[in-house]
């Protein structure tokens, strides 16, 4: 982890209220692993705290951050211009486990709710070396589905779930997952990687009871202070008590979350 200053390469509007910010950093490109995040100081004169943002994609030395407008921080970030200096602390946190031997032989399912695709794409970049990656993208409507083609280009199989049924499966992405786990994947050992709204992540727990052979790693978010484990602001309740999302997380085994 280091504090670096990088200059913005580009800022693209991907969809309504959704942006892709790119910059170059050989340090972060080298050190980062999927599920880790960057802590950005966005507007030192008006916004005090840094803002945590997932690493979305790394190609060569180019780092992408995918974000949606949420508040003052993201709004200001969406006004970034090419050449602007970014004050970045990172890479931070503990990301997804995708290298363990017992994980390598299993079927991988990536489950993204809305902006939850942000860290999962970087994971898919690393995972596609092993084949058998299924990506489930969920959103309220077709318009909010992100990165479908990008995942397909990596060779992932992509299934869509929209709550209004405007594309793919009609219903929540977690319901689609449940359906798949009880039919096609019931006998197989799977590793599920999920990111999305907190409520969606909690709804995975009852679903997993139907798939005892599945392992599920989930990336959580919470309002953060320092991002480096010092202030103990961004905690989540686990079976062992409060744990810091910025340090022991943001990725946790869903079984440990109480």
């Amino acid at each position, binding site marked *: 982890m280091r*504090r670096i200053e990088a200059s913005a390469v580009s800022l693209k509007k991907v969809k309504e209220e959704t942006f892709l910010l790119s910059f170059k950093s050989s340090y972060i490109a080298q050190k980062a692993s999927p599920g880790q995040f960057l802590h950005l100081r966005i507007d030192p004169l008006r916004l005090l705290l840094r803002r945590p943002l997932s690493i979305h994609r790394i190609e060569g030395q180019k780092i992408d951050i995918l974000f949606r407008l949420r508040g003052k921080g993201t709004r200001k970030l969406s006004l970034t211009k090419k050449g602007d200096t970014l004050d970045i602390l990172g890479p931070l946190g503990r990301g997804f486990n995708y290298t363990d031997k017992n994980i390598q032989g299993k079927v991988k399912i990536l489950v993204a709710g809305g902006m939850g695709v942000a860290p999962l794409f970087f994971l898919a970049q690393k995972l596609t070396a092993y084949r058998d990656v299924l990506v489930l993208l969920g959103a309220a409507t077709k318009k909010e589905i992100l990165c479908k083609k990008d995942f397909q280009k990596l060779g992932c199989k992509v299934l869509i779930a929209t709550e209004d049924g405007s594309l793919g499966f009609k219903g929540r992405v977690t319901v689609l997952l449940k359906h798949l786990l009880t039919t096609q994947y019931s006998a197989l050992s799977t590793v599920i990687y999920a990111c999305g709204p907190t409520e969606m992540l909690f709804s995975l727990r009852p679903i997993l009871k139907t798939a005892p052979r599945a392992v599920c790693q989930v990336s959580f978010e919470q309002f953060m202070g320092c991002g*480096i*484990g010092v202030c*103990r*602001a961004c905690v989540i309740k686990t079976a062992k008590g409060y744990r810091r999302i910025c340090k022991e997380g943001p990725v946790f085994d869903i079984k440990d979350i109480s």
Partner: protein
Amino acid sequence: MARKKISLSTNFRGLRLKNPVVLCSGTAGFGLELEEIFDFKNIGAIVTKTLTLRPQAGNPPPRIAETASGVLNSIGLENLGLKSFLGEFNKLKRLPADIIVSVYAHTKEDFKKMILRLDEERHIKAIELNFSCPNLRIKKMISQSAQLTASFVKYIRKATKKVLIAKLTPEVTDIVKVAKSAYEAGIDGLSLVNTFSGIKIDTTTKKPFLGNVFGGLSGPAIKPLALARVFRVYKELKIPIIASGGIFDYQDALEFIFAGATCIGLGTANLIDPDAPRRILKDLTFYMERNRISSLEEIRGVAHG
């Protein structure tokens, strides 16, 4: 013309620090967490996260919210407890900054128990008594009563010869009265000020945003409020003070030194800018060079005329 030699070394009632920058309790963990990105050469002392006799889980999340120029937090003294801390203490000894340990207990007796244990550790240079955590479910903070503050200090004072500092809440009618009672009871110095109580309401849920409802406000938003309290206490008592409240740059630091502060406490800044201590010291040194000041003693309290 020969240049005057500039020294930033600071004497806090016999506690000699290499410079006046202190990392405030709760914003620097136990120091070790910061090693990767903070250069401890630029830090005079670190005040540890407040310890309690037994481990404490802390408050439910969310525990932090940003406000205009400020940060609201309600951590609730989450800590590993005194025993585990002492078990890990060897690792802390090698940090090239002095260690001030912050402690809290509900009763005088528990305070004393902790202090007797800390007194045995040669490397602990001072003890800060947290009489002002705003995030506990107690009716009153110790430092909201001059009598209570005096009786706690008097009782604890007997347990150690180490430098004793009391951290006070700014939320009293007359902070000078509380400061004076601590001073007369034998405190060596004060840490001024802890956070101001505040809340944020979530406009979506219409309910308080923080898990514990109330939080403590820190950051630039409280700087003038903290400065006024440091100013008043110094004016009356001329006692060593670790001043804190939104210090982010050398000009903030100067204001507090002119008001009478001995040490410059960084709190909220630690959460955001790991470079703040180095930058403040560099700019302070430059200021001193330009104004032919060789020691901060020359400018301490000068705002009082």
